[in-house]
């Protein structure tokens, strides 16, 4: 079920009503309702995939309980690895089976050995990479004694399948989300209104920015041979705002929807395109995945290899970025994208001696300094270059795209629908303006500093109108669903 669909527009008020008016006095009933609603939400795509979530839930719940009563370290380790193998086994099979098989076949054929391919027609369950990482973090934290294992199966099931963030995050930690299922949630107007504001901004980013940018990004990337260099560069910029609007828009809707039910999810994006270097970018982009990879991949690796000196840190950082790339998709293009960011990150550490710029851009002034503007533009260009590999279907497509940018003539961008594209560019500037002005707030539409109700009302009505006017003719799914 997509957030910007009629199905969800009917589903959400029904669940909201049942949650606050029918089940409001019974915490267990509220949690059970969340589990049921989440299974309906997920089953809307394909009921068969529910079995994977339910199996993962059962495995991690049981392992958590066993870990609580187990003191023998070797047995604890076996239990943790059982969870890792089961969860990553599912992920590996559904997401990476054909990728690894194809590469093995190619590697053997390189050495003159022909193997009969036996690839399977596997459908990727929506959001499997997200909920797998979420459940894994629970078991690892329990194993590390950082979290008390739960004895409430319904609460744990709700934590695993909580519908607002189930299919595209934020990837929540059990230490933040699980305890919220133990406590009575209280409905407050302020929190619900904040939730609605965040949903509105998320819809604007998804429907107006991302979906319209997608039209041009798709047109230009799919027919790159027909366009000149500046048009191709514009295509990459459209893609940069498609991905940002799409994914951060989803996160805003997820966080806003959670607020409607009395929950607080972690912030997932913090104006990443205003980052002054790549290190800062990764503190502001997909924060929940970065912190997950930091805690469960980078830190254990870097600790184990800390006595290798610089090599230990460098290889741990680079490996973590490769994993990040592979997490995004079973394709060499994503691995190259991850490797590029790994390189960017290491070069940035070298030049800055590991110092991320302090605070936020324009910390003590209205406008950013010239130096900051230069840093932001450079960081954005580096990110855009990596997006070429994020967007293309194959490495050869990526290299051909770059070659075309370098070799074609440099005239004014020329493509169909330039007038609408100009409108979209103006809307992107509007997006950047609002996000810059609101950069110090937890969410963009926190307009509490404007005392006048009419100012706020004008903003809300304008956004609703923009969403209606620019609703795309073709329904676009969320980019991150494929991950």
């Amino acid at each position, binding site marked *: 079920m997509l957030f910007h669909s009629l199905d969800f527009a009917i589903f959400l008020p029904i669940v909201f009503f049942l949650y606050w008016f029918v089940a409001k006095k019974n915490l267990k009933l509220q949690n059970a309702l969340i589990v049921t609603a989440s299974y309906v939400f997920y089953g809307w795509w394909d009921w068969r995939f529910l079995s994977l979530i339910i199996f993962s839930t059962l495995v991690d719940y049981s392992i958590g309980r066993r870990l609580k009563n187990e003191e023998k370290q070797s047995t604890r380790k076996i239990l943790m690895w059982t969870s890792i193998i089961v969860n990553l086994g599912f992920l590996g099979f559904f997401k990476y089976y054909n990728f690894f098989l194809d590469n093995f076949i190619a590697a053997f054929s390189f050495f003159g050995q022909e193997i009969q391919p036996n690839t399977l027609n596997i459908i990727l369950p929506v959001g499997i990479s997200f909920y797998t990482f979420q459940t894994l973090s629970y078991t690892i934290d329990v194993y590390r*004694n950082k979290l008390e294992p739960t004895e409430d199966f319904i609460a744990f099931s709700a934590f695993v399948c909580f519908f607002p963030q189930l299919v595209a995050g934020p990837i929540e930690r059990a230490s933040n989300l699980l305890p919220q299922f133990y406590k009575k949630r209280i409905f407050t107007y302020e929190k619900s209104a904040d939730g609605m504001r965040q949903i509105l901004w998320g819809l604007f980013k998804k429907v107006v920015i991302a979906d319209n940018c997608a039209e041009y990004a798709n047109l230009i990337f799919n027919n790159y041979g027909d366009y000149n260099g500046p048009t191709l560069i514009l295509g990459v910029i459209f893609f940069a705002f498609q991905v940002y609007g799409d994914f951060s828009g989803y996160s805003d809707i997820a966080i806003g929807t959670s607020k409607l039910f009395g929950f607080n999810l972690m912030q997932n994006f913090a104006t990443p395109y205003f980052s002054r270097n790549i290190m800062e970018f990764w503190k502001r982009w997909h924060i929940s995945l970065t912190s997950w990879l930091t805690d469960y991949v980078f*830190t254990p690796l*870097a*600790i*184990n290899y*800390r006595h290798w000196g610089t090599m230990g840190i460098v290889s741990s*950082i680079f490996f973590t970025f490769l994993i990040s790339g592979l997490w995004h998709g079973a394709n060499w293009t994503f691995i190259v994208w991850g490797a590029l960011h790994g390189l960017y990150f290491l070069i940035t550490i070298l030049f800055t001696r590991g*110092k991320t710029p*302090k605070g936020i851009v324009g910390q003590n002034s209205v406008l950013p300094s010239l130096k900051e503007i230069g840093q932001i533009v450079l960081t954005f260009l580096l990110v855009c270059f990596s997006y070429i590999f994020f967007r293309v279907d194959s490495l050869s497509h990526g290299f051909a795209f770059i070659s075309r940018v370098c070799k074609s003539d440099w005239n004014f961008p020329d493509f169909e629908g330039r007038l609408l594209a100009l409108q979209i560019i103006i809307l992107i500037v509007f997006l950047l303006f609002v996000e810059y002005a609101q950069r110090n707030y937890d969410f963009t539409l926190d307009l509490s500093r404007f005392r006048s109700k009419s100012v706020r009302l004008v903003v809300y009505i304008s956004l609703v109108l923009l969403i209606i006017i620019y609703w795309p003719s073709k329904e676009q799914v969320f980019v991150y669903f494929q991950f």
Partner: protein
Amino acid sequence: MNFPTNKHLFKNSKMTRDLIKVELDIVFRDVLDDDSISLSDSTVAEDIEEWDSINHIQLVVQIEKRYKIRFKAAEIQSWENIGEIIDSIIRKLE
């Protein structure tokens, strides 16, 4: 500043903890390049902007060098605050 190496000094007394804390202040200021750092038992990574995951590894290495000790990986990952780091150092030196 040289920390005393006499084994008998390393009892989990308030004085020992204070001495280690002073030493850790120096290590943290040096690694994180911030002279304003002043640690307490309850200080956590979120309290110091420069204390990120990469600098954390450098801090561990410098602490191990200074006290000529070696922590276990699980021990390092269990630390929640400075107080727990000091506990680990004292355990290693006792």
